[in-house]
């Protein structure tokens, strides 16, 4: 049976992996290759790197990280953050990324998703969706949940799949950073409307949240950052817990 995936997310800035709470008090988390190897050894199914570099000058530094990780770690690597053009996608794939995640640029220019999928194949195009509950619906927000776009999250998800997204990474901006679990209602609503796999993100505080994300949220994969970075849980522990709850894991 196909296993549900656990994906640790690593924040990268200025060519280093960092950890912090809500992007403040960032501290150096160590060598990216060593961290990637550690997660790989623990059984991570994929790795996601999120480039949080503010200035575009230093954004190329992530290419070096991906190149080094791809020489040593042989599981799928996804890179997101600051992807604006087909050429950005090309450079990340050439550096060794297997998938590239597109967020704000898809909203500003939806044809970027179609163009990138036509050129490189849907299998490597992930669209990241940041959504917030507004009344009975969810709306797409940008800039860390500050700017509303007026786009309905479910219609947007369908539109992105129609344009060639091979996977959706859904982050609840209500839940992100709260450690109170995913927005499973949002994830299940999207998962039942699209044919591509979805990754649940935002809000994980304990291992039961990962289980709920799969069972209640109908997610195909769960992404978490802080519970793994700060050593609260290892990926091995997360997998054992999920296995115990009868979820198929690797």
């Amino acid at each position, binding site marked *: *049976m*196909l*296993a*549900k*995936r656990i994906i640790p997310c690593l924040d990268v800035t200025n060519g280093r992996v960092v950890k912090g709470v809500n992007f403040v008090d960032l501290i150096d988390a160590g060598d990216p290759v060593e961290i990637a190897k550690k997660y*790989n050894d623990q059984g991570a*199914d994929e790795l996601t790197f999120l480039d949080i570099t503010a200035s575009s000058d230093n954004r190329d530094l992530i290419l070096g990280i991906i190149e080094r990780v*791809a*020489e*040593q770690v*042989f*599981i*799928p690597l996804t890179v997101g953050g600051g992807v604006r053009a087909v050429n950005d996608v090309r450079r990340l*794939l*050439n550096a*060794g990324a*297997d998938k590239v995640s597109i967020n704000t640029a898809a909203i500003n220019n939806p044809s970027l998703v179609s163009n990138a999928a036509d050129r*490189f*194949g*849907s*299998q*490597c195009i992930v669209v990241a969706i940041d959504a917030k509950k507004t009344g009975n619906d969810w709306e797409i927000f940008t800039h860390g949940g500050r700017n509303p776009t007026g786009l309905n999250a479910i219609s947007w998800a369908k539109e992105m799949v129609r344009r060639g997204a*091979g*996977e959706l990474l859904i982050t609840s901006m209500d839940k992100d950073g709260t450690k109170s679990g995913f927005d499973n209602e949002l994830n299940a609503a999207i*998962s*039942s409307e699209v*044919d*591509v*796999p979805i990754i649940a993100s935002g809000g994980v505080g304990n291992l039961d949240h990962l289980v709920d994300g799969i069972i209640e949220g*109908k997610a*195909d*994969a769960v992404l978490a950052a802080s519970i793994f970075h700060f050593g609260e849980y290892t990926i091995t522990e997360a997998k054992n817990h999920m296995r115990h709850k009868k979820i198929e894991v*690797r």
Partner: protein
Amino acid sequence: MIAIVDYGMGNLRSVFNAFKKVSPNQKILVTSDSKLIQAADKVVFPGQGAMPDCVRELSERNLIESVIDAARNKPFLGICIGLQMLNNFSEEGNIKGLGIIDGRVLKFKPKNHFNKVPHMGWNEVHRPKNHFMWNGIPNNERFYFVHSYYVQPQSRNLVAGECVYEKPFCCAVSKDNIFAVQFHPEKSSQAGLQLLQNFTRWKV
């Protein structure tokens, strides 16, 4: 020398990196030069994206003949679309393949909405028969898949590996000097590296 056939579809660096990892002293080339493919001891035929694009790019680079020649004569490893292209026909674009394997490429049409397409992630590979390429890998080991089409060989004898996604499908084909897989060994951690190492040691 192992030649990885480059026809401009997708990034072959991870395939190259994985071979370098398992066989650092062996000469590994990523090439679109048919002379080098002819000269190689072994050939790797990868592929990603859509099969019609892959066949077109292969044809535009005049590589079809050298790939068919390699598939008839030397240890040959097909990966993902590289497996699919060996078949007679694909539902993707309703096109002809290279016709090296008697089989067809079909699209996943899951009945259950929560079986997503593409089939993406780590799934178990069952083995109907032993093969040198499986050495050192436990039966039912998981490999990483990402694909929307699968192959259906005409004869059971061609099936070297099976996987279940709603129903069983063939995920590895073997025929004489050919071994071809639907999953990505270069992204399948230890088990995938073992398979690639086996290829570097495979004598036919």
